[in-house]
């Protein structure tokens, strides 16, 4: 079997299954991840296959889940924990920021914590309040955490395998709205490392769209629409907000001389603003126009009937591209 058509949810499930099979130190736990298989079914069938020691339900307390993972990792295990939704991970914030992120440094490298914290995140599913936050900036701002987010089923599989094998803690942000998107996933070929590596999703010569997670398909759609109008847009999938791949992103921007950064999260003090700053610092002399951002407004995530105004859409992206000072050409 070289490839198989899978949804992102199925690809993540396969990654967990393969990691549990290959590494007896991997343990999966969280809320409803046992017999139910998780509210998004990412852990479907794992308790039945690996037993309730390897994939188990915990009491409903996120700080407890992450705190226990810290201890298990200190004692030789590789915990993979699920936070049920982005905003439900906040009770675990102290454990993540003060311990998961800092223990290696605190102990001068003696105690590493190979923990994966899976966080279904972002909007686009018509979710009610507390179910649609884009919380990546909180984690990306914290030294000691790696923060990755897949945009395709194939990346979801390989990135999660890589995150579980990583000696460092990884906050694994899963774009909920892409859980059911399907593609052919290649399991046989060892994928090149994706953590810390951005990837060019579409070649283009006029401007570069930089996106990650849930915004990547939107960026690709925008590039397709632009092509109809004769404009060639390149699309870069960041994949790994931390560590960030300056090299690939900057090479891409230099090749076109124009860039738009796209993300669902509110723009102020965000991953998108960091990308704009980095690109501007490094590529200033190659830029024909200031780097633009298309992000969420600086508002709490809207109720379902208003969320379309918050999410970066094709038109808003194309408007930003139009603003990149083409008149000078």
């Amino acid at each position: 079997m070289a490839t198989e058509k899978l949804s992102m949810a199925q690809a993540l499930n396969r990654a967990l299954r393969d990691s549990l099979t290959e590494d007896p130190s991997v343990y999966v736990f969280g809320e409803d991840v046992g017999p139910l298989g998780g509210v998004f079914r990412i852990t479907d069938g794992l308790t039945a296959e690996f037993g309730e020691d390897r994939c188990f339900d915990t009491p409903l307390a996120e700080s407890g889940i992450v705190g226990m993972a810290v201890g298990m990792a200190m004692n030789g295990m590789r915990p993979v924990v699920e936070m049920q939704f982005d905003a439900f991970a906040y009770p675990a914030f102290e454990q993540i920021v003060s311990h998961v992120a800092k223990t290696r440094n605190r102990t001068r490298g003696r105690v590493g914590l190979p923990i994966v914290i899976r966080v279904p995140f972002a909007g686009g599913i018509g979710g009610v309040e507390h179910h649609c936050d884009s919380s990546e900036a909180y984690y990306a701002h914290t030294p000691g955490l790696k923060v990755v987010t897949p945009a395709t089923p194939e990346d979801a599989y390989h990135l999660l395998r890589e995150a579980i094998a990583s000696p460092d803690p990884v906050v694994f942000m899963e774009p909920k709205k892409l859980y059911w998107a399907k593609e052919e996933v290649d399991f046989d070929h060892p994928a090149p490392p994706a953590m810390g590596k951005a990837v060019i999703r579409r070649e283009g010569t006029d401007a570069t769209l930089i996106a990650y997670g849930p915004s990547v398909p939107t960026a690709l759609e925008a590039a397709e629409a632009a092509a109809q109008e004769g404009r060639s847009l390149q699309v870069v999938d960041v994949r790994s907000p931390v560590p960030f791949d300056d090299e690939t992103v900057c090479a891409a921007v230099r090749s076109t001389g124009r860039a738009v950064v796209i993300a669902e999260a509110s723009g102020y003090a965000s991953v998108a603003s960091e990308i704009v700053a980095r690109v501007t610092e490094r590529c200033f002399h190659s830029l024909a126009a200031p780097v633009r951002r298309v992000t969420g407004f600086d508002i709490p995530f809207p109720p379902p009937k208003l969320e379309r105004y918050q999410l970066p859409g094709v038109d808003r992206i194309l408007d930003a591209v139009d603003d990149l000072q083409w008149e000078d050409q």
Partner: protein
Amino acid sequence: MAEHQGLLPSERPLQLLDETGTPVDGSGLAMPDNRRLLEAYTSLVIGRRVNDQAGALVRQGRLAVYPSSHGQEACQTGAALALADGDWLFPTYRDTAAVIARGVDAVEVLTLLKGDWHAGYDPYAHNVAPQATPLATQLLHAVGVAHAARLRGEDTVVMALCGDGATSEGDFHEALNFAAVFKAPVVFFVQNNEYAISVPLARQSAAPSLAHKGVGYGVQGERVDGNDTAAVLAVLERAAESARSGGGPRLVEAHTYRMQAHTNADDDTRYRDSGEVDPWVERDPLTRMEKYLKRKRVLTKAKQAEITEAAEAVAAHMREGVAKDTDPEPAELFAHVFADPTPQLNEQAAFLADELSREGN
């Protein structure tokens, strides 16, 4: 008797020796043997010396600060001595004496307060977690270590320390609950010293005792006189053996008192009268144990001299180690953030190195 009543602590804290060092009815608690008590007394004396010496080093400007366990040495001793070699200790910032009693080098422990790094010792060398500064967070780590051991079929016990203030934190409750649900072999040992910095116990909890908090989680609570070394040791050993043999977690509250201010930076005259502190001098854990052991003729003059000498050796080692002027290496700041530094950290390390070279360093 309803099942939950078996989880409730005794009406009064358990005691084996009263304030005069006279044996009392221990309500079924067995007195440790003389050899063990002498070992505990040695640890008490060293613990007191460690506290005094660290305080002096702060006054000399050698340590930034020191949260002393003066008066709580019975708890420090009990926590360390109740554990077997493969067991784990999860200490807080006030538990330096317990960490040293567990075998960690005194100078390495003081690295944090000396300002050279955060945790100065290897947690795996003696199975002692870094001293926790945030309150109660370490209790969940203790549950995780215990759960991992239980899953592997090991008979490890984890001793998780916290103070009375920490029992108000959410993580305290999550830790008790998780430990109970997973039957994790953890002894939660609360040193109730009556104060969280300036806030007295009455503002911390309206429960009949902190040990009563166990019943809500299905965890047996126990109360012990925290200045009675014999009782503390006996209660903690019993709790550890219960946890080791599959009995799940236990919550032990020691009633003790913080004889000194929170740290040297604190002024306790702003929130308590010296009249409140004085009665606790009479309850000092060292004199109580000393009286008992002398009466039993276990503590001879020669033995006493030997113990004093051992404590002085630890103090001398602390003075010497802390007095050494060290120059922590700035490049190390980037070395342990991740297993391998990211390209960004390498850039920043190079930036700092360049800055230092231009300064002629």
